[in-house]
């Protein structure tokens, strides 16, 4: 019987120890904990870009220089870059329907300079931009990394375009 009592005591002790161990864990069990890792960012070299003058029916070449993704999240994960563009509007009369609305903007991803070995795929060579996001690059990453490229733009000016100054908004997103 003595052995059984000792065994019971040991069990009780173990149970008490478990309780002791659990209580402090619950005490720090708040809703959230801070994340030590960093940020995901996207920059371009300049705010805004200029295009050369064009003649109707011809293509204009332009670029958005220094598109850079900086991923300091220090995770195994993924990031994806997508691009969209609004239709060209006439700067003098932004609300008017314009003859440049149908001008197709083709986005070409330049050579990618990467650090931290992101495995970049889905690099569609030439995407015609629309108002809906088109994915131009995705990366599977492990640890901090960055990628840098220049976006080549080719704008097909419709033959029936009227003289004027037109502008478009091109949005780069990293998610």
């Amino acid at each position, binding site marked *: 019987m003595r052995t059984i009592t000792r065994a019971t005591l040991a069990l009780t002790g173990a149970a008490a120890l478990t309780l002791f161990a659990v209580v402090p864990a619950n005490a720090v069990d708040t809703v959230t904990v801070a994340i030590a890792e960093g*940020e995901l960012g*996207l*920059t371009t070299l300049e705010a*805004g870009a200029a295009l050369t003058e064009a003649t109707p029916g011809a293509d204009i070449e332009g670029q958005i220089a220094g598109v850079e993704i900086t991923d*300091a999240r220090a*995770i195994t994960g993924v990031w994806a870059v997508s691009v969209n563009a609004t239709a060209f509007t006439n700067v003098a009369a932004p609300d008017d329907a314009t003859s440049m609305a149908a001008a197709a903007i083709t986005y070409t991803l330049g050579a990618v300079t990467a650090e931290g070995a992101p495995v970049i795929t889905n690099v569609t060579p030439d995407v015609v931009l629309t108002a809906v996001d088109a994915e131009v690059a995705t990366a599977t990453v492990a640890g901090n990394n960055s990628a840098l490229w220049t976006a080549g*733009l080719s704008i097909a000016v419709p033959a029936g375009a009227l003289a004027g100054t037109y502008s478009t908004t*091109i949005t780069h997103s990293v998610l």
Partner: protein
Amino acid sequence: MTCPAAYAAGHVLRFVSLSPTTSRESKPMLKRWTPPLAIALISLALVAIPSSAFASTRAAQTADTSDKFGVAIQLLDVATELKDDPRAQSAIVDNIAPGESIERNFRVRNSSTTAQTVVIYTTSASVTDGSFTAGKNAPADALASWAVPAQTEIALEADASADIALTIAIPSDAPEGEQYAALWAEVKSAPDAESNIITANRAGIRMYVSVGAGNGPAAAFSIDSITAARDDAGAPQINAAVTNTGGRAVDIRGTVSLANGPGSLSAGPFELTETTTLAPGESGEVSVTLDDALPNGPWDATLTLTSGLLSEEASATITFPDAGTGDTVVVEDNEPNWLILGGGIVVFLVAFGAFARLWIIRRRTATQP
């Protein structure tokens, strides 16, 4: 009865306190507890290393003095129960009951070299064709409209940052299931006479929010089949069909290892070329392109796929075709056979019960005078 109880309590206290005492009993106890303490100290030191390495990377990045125009975003906190999940480190992956709300903090930084106004908003998102894609610039979607940032616009000096709260409040009549959205920080260049192109740059945080009571549905996926193929350039390729069998979206990445090849060759592990995101019930394909120099085989290919803390492994014997697509090998169920396992447990319990009964009878007989 009180005396043994006090003894037990004293025993426990000595276990917990770890304080060196002159007690004869506690000395071996202290020795036994030293290795875990040492391990804890070592792991603390290990944890400290990545953060200092990280700091130096940041210093190197900020040393760049060229002009920049852009924004960065960072999730600042994660639910305690999800803190070990790598997906939860960069995305909001919570389960919220209808009628409940959660708050998460995020930091936006104006990474431009000039002062900018950063606009903060949410948009809908979807998981299609193996990737997470954000919708248009309107919170028309349910989750996107339930997630409300405390500030929608903030003026920030160059390199300045601000911490902002995001409240996700689920209406009590919300349908159960997983929904997707994106939280964005955006800078947009002002229109000027010189620029025909207004650039808008934005960085976002993914939201995979499941609506439902309790902990929500579990995440799970299966590897259905493995196919060896050659791509258009003739490089060997391994493709696998995967299905999301759980109730949460999965971000599948992983590796392929080849073993028992011609001449006992082994190769790999090779990283999958892309992370594939699948919504619940969706199927997709993951693939890896290998080196041209690999012989055709046969090989024993082992595929190890993960999504957050989930991991699935499948093996198949494959042979690369000379061109095109080779035979598809259906993966045998790698899960333990529950029927056999359950049967084993029952047999064990019965045997244990019989043994225990025998032991009690023997003891009773022995203690009887």
